[in-house]
């Protein structure tokens, strides 16, 4: 419970920063921080494997990817972003606050229904692997196909249109 009490505000602060920071790179780095804290949260909750995977994939890959795209696209000045903020914030809050209200309402309802097993629980890698390749084997295959397709698709997208891959003699 104590680690949760420490982690929760940290995660929320980092997430708020990721949403609020006007400078895109800051937002992306704060996202990485949020995700890393999330990974720690998973570790605390006993899902070691998931936590480490989360760290590897999100911090090591997704966040780096986002940062990298930011570097390539070089987003413009944040002054305009800040200037436009009040207006967009009104509509944004108008949409998201009711969602939050509904979610919190449901959470409170859920709690009155009440169910809490508090025994420590952890998942061993062996158990996870066995389940993954028996119960969820079709899903694993589907994800494999998906990832292959994504790899090919992303490579196709990212290729300069109408241009061959450069050969050394081109340069």
């Amino acid at each position, binding site marked *: 419970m104590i680690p949760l009490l420490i982690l929760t505000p940290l995660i929320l602060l980092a997430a708020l920063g990721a949403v609020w920071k006007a400078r895109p790179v800051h937002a992306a780095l704060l996202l990485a921080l949020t995700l890393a804290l999330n990974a720690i949260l998973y570790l605390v909750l006993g899902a070691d494997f998931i936590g480490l995977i989360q760290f590897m994939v999100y911090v090591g890959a997704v966040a780096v990817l986002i940062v990298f795209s930011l570097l390539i696209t070089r987003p413009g000045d944040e002054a305009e972003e800040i200037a436009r903020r009040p207006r967009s914030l009104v509509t944004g809050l*108008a949409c*998201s606050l009711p*969602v939050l209200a509904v979610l919190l309402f449901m959470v409170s309802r859920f709690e009155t229904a009440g169910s809490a097993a508090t025994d420590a629980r952890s998942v061993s890698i062996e158990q996870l692997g066995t389940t993954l390749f028996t119960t969820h084997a079709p899903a694993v295959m589907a994800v494999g196909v998906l990832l292959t397709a994504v790899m090919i698709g992303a490579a196709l997208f990212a290729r300069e249109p109408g241009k061959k891959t450069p050969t050394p003699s081109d340069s």
Partner: protein
Amino acid sequence: MVETLTPHLPNLLWWVPLLPLIAGGIIALLPDKHGRIASKLAIGALFVSCLIALAALACSLTPKEVEAFAPVTWFTFGDVALKVGLLLDPLSASMAAMVTFVALWIFIYSTGYMADEKRFGRFFGFLSMFCGAMLMVVLSNSLLLLFMAWELVGLASYLLIGFYFEKPSAAAAAQKAFITTRVGDMAFFLGMIWLYSQTGTLLFYDGGNGLLESGALASLAGATTVGGLSVSAAAGLLLLVGAMGKSGQVPLHTWLPDAMEGPTPVSALIHAATMVAAGVFMVARTHPIFANGGGLTVPLTACAWVGGITALYAALVAMAQTDFKRILAYSTVSQLGFMMVALGTGGVAAGMLHLICHAFFKALLFLSAGSVIHGCHGEQDIRKMGGLSKPMRRTFIAYAIGMMALSGFPFLFSGFWSKEGILHSAQTWAGGYGPFLLAASAALLTAFYMTRQALLVFFGEPRKPGVHHPHESPSVMLIPLYVLAAGAVLLSLIATPIWPWFEKWIEGESAVFDGGALSHGLGLIALSLGIVTVGVGASWMIYRKPSENSNAPDPLAGKLGPLWNFLERAMGFDALYEKAIIGPLAFFAGGVDMLERMLFVPLMGMAEGLIKGFGRLTGATDESGINRGFNSLCSGLKQRASSASRSQSGRPQAYLRSIGLGMSVLLILYFWLSAR
């Protein structure tokens, strides 16, 4: 060999339809530039399935029980399992062998005929699919599977007829074929559903539980429906309508002559082996339903009469046509009528014999027509040909064999014997002489118009010298011609009354050589001879000396006057449909259109549009008024629309926000309401 093969047949037989279908699928994935590979693939697949079909034929030669392979449960809903399977009996074995054999030679011919075609590979893909679907029709042991394959045949025919889709006429012909057969298919579908609801099965043979076996037939005959018809008769009629659509019987025949807009090998395939044969085959396959109850059943009577009328009608129309392929197309309609007469009056055997013989010589005729057209650089008008027998001697010989087989030249040619068989069964039919007379006169006319065509195309002097330099076709196109010609001649061996092997085999008996059988039908043979002689002779008298001028009217045109024009326009069926069906439809559509405008315009607050709408009501023919009204309606709409479309900002987040707001409102509303 037969003994060793038989146990493997259930597995092998699936490959007969599947191989061409798979080949078609693979070709569909090939880029167009690999046309040569596609053609080799298609021919190879069909060759293998031809071998299997011939092996199956060999296995089914010994008379035995019907062999049904229904091993596959397709799907299950509730506790009802829908099974599909294949069937091997003399009927399907002979059809499968014929289809694969004839189609194989048509494929080979196509490699020569379509050599310059840009979409060469695609063509073979379609052909393969066409053939595979037809084979599925032939071998299916389930009415449902048959129907599915039947629709696939329809689709493939649509694609092939519209193969030159840049040509508006081809595109129109393809649509026409598709829509016209759809009318028949609807009836077929209804009949199928009715049969299923009555018997609970769609398998033909299923160890006593099948649709065509005594139990189901008895229940079909027992139930009656409107007008005292038994269900089997009613369902049979519906199936007959389906077959009429597919096999081009009056009045659903109009698509068939137009279908020759496709490349010539396609016409050959449609007219000979696959498409139109499907209808006749379906009637033959479900013949027990038609004949259910014994005696002179309603569907059989209908079948005979429809066939007879079609035969005579098409023969009459064919007399007055000038397009090489169109004449052949109408002759196909006419011959299909013969088959229907045979099925209606005599039974499966006579009809199937004619179907198979016809497949050979009609494929032959179409392919030689293709060869002639190919040689004349695309010219199709027989009035502009003439004298081709010299430059295209080899094509001419092949054509002559096919033409003589079709006109029923005595003794040597299969067409004579099969037609004779039909006339025989029509003559002895208990339901009257009507179909017999119709068929006999159609036979006479057949001889007449085929002679006319032959004379105009191959004899006399070239009527447009200097324009064409007719040349002989390459041997890849000629060899199929001769193979089919040999078939057209040799088939007569198994079809004579002396040794009616084929008919007995289909009926499950063994044939005996009976020289005396000839004498029983001697009168009829004499009649056939007379018919052919009169037909050919009359044609010879009239067309012996064709006019030098290619634009001169036909010699008969003067004598027949307006009747000739009537025939030339195919008795106005197309025009009739134009007026009777399309006209009202267009009128109705116009009405709907008008209604919409009348409702729409006031809604948009366009007083001007309202006035124009009234103006359109009063002066419906005023073209300019309509146009202007429409334009102003459009511009008014555009103004309103552009102001309305300003809300469509094109920004994803704006949309997201609206969605979010809407969701929020809904949620709040929901909670508010549920809280109350």
